[in-house]
């Protein structure tokens, strides 16, 4: 990208902007403290907001010093990245959209630009324009940095939630003495399958289960990877001396499996969870007496 401030001339616009920022640091911070972005985030005291503003001005001056006003990765920004993220996050929590946060960031430019224009009043119009442009670019980059940081926070949050979901979404239910079941819901990718398999195998061991039912009613797509995971789980359960039954294969999925050419021949399947349970109870030799006093009579 073309730099406006090329050459090592002592009067490079970026350096003019740097000097201006250092000179006017206090005034800029004071003006920003009245802008919504600072005012609503730093609510303990006005001094707190001014302090935060000074830190940002300081960072901007350092970036200008390195003449990398267009570079969001400029080292000068690193000192305020975390602070910008906290400010952005606070505004999002207050219900602002990303676009609104972005325009609050944009609103930081005019007061600074007005100060710059006043300061460089005596300069040639050409010179003033160059410096004003450098400042505008620099503030635009600040906005980019803030938004990037906010986005990576959101990414980190969704990653954490995904991990949590992996853990909570695989409950093992004890249906009967010796029969456990896992109702699977959602996407069965490799990470999820791993968790399901571990949870189920542990339950089989802990509960001395002879049957494990995998109910896939809530799994929207069964492709070759999902099928492979199911078969691996079935094999592992078998190694523990128990039998695995897969239930809840919906008609559309059954047809698709056939076309796909998957051979689930070694897997015992039942239409619904109730059928699967019935099968397991039969095999266990349990004797169910409907609504009899004393409930079900089991072996």
């Amino acid at each position: 990208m073309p730099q406006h401030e090329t050459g090592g001339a002592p009067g490079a616009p970026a350096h003019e902007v740097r000097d201006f920022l250092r000179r006017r640091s206090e005034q800029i911070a004071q003006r920003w403290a009245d802008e919504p972005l600072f005012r609503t985030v730093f609510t303990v005291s006005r001094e707190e907001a001014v302090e935060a503003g000074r830190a940002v001005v300081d960072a901007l001056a350092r970036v200008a010093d390195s003449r990398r006003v267009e570079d969001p990765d400029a080292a000068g920004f690193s000192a305020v990245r975390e602070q910008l993220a906290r400010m952005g996050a606070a505004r999002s929590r207050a219900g602002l959209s990303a676009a609104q946060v972005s325009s609050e960031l944009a609103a930081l430019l005019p007061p600074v630009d007005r100060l710059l224009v006043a300061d460089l009043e005596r300069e040639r119009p050409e010179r003033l324009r160059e410096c004003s442009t450098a400042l505008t670019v620099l503030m635009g980059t600040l906005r980019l940095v803030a938004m990037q940081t906010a986005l990576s926070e959101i990414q980190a949050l969704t990653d954490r939630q995904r991990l949590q979901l992996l853990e909570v979404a695989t409950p093992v239910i004890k249906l009967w003495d010796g029969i456990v079941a896992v109702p699977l819901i959602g996407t069965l990718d490799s990470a999820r399958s791993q968790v399901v398999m571990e949870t189920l195998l542990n339950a089989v061991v802990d509960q001395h289960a002879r049957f494990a039912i995998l109910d896939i009613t809530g799994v929207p797509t069964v492709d070759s990877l999902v099928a492979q995971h199911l078969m691996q789980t079935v094999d592992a359960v078998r190694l523990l001396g128990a039998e695995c039954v897969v239930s809840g294969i919906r008609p559309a999925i059954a047809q698709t499996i056939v076309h796909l050419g998957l051979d689930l021949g070694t897997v015992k399947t039942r239409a619904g969870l109730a059928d699967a349970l019935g099968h397991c109870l039969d095999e266990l030799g349990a004797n169910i007496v409907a609504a009899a006093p004393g409930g079900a009579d089991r072996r």
Partner: protein
Amino acid sequence: MDTAAGVEARLPIRSDMDLVWVRQHVRHAAAKLGFSLVDQTKLVTAASELARNTLVHGGGGQMETAQVTTGGNGGLRLTFSDSGPGIPDLDRALSDGYTSGGGLGMGLGGARRLVHDFTVETVPGSGTSVRVTSWVSRPPRLREDV
């Protein structure tokens, strides 16, 4: 066509999460075009296989979806492309049970059986593009093109 709005798209395939978007998009698009539940499921499953191949074997890429019409019959066309290593022996890759990794080797051949039209363009060293089309009713007869 107003249906094109929710149908035409270009989605990145760079992570497991992207595969979820691909499946969801194909399901919504197919439903919007009037595919039956079974046909939706077939197309979504084929998309899932091809998108994962793009990710795992092709090193990532994208899927483009387009609405197509022939003789009053509507269809959905999906194009998966990557700039990965390409497929050196396509016949072998299409045969059931062949895998260069630890898969079942059913993805490519299976996807072909799940759709009406299936074309692969692959250049060793520069990438692979798989284009599939399925029609809402039956595939149009005597099509010279595609």
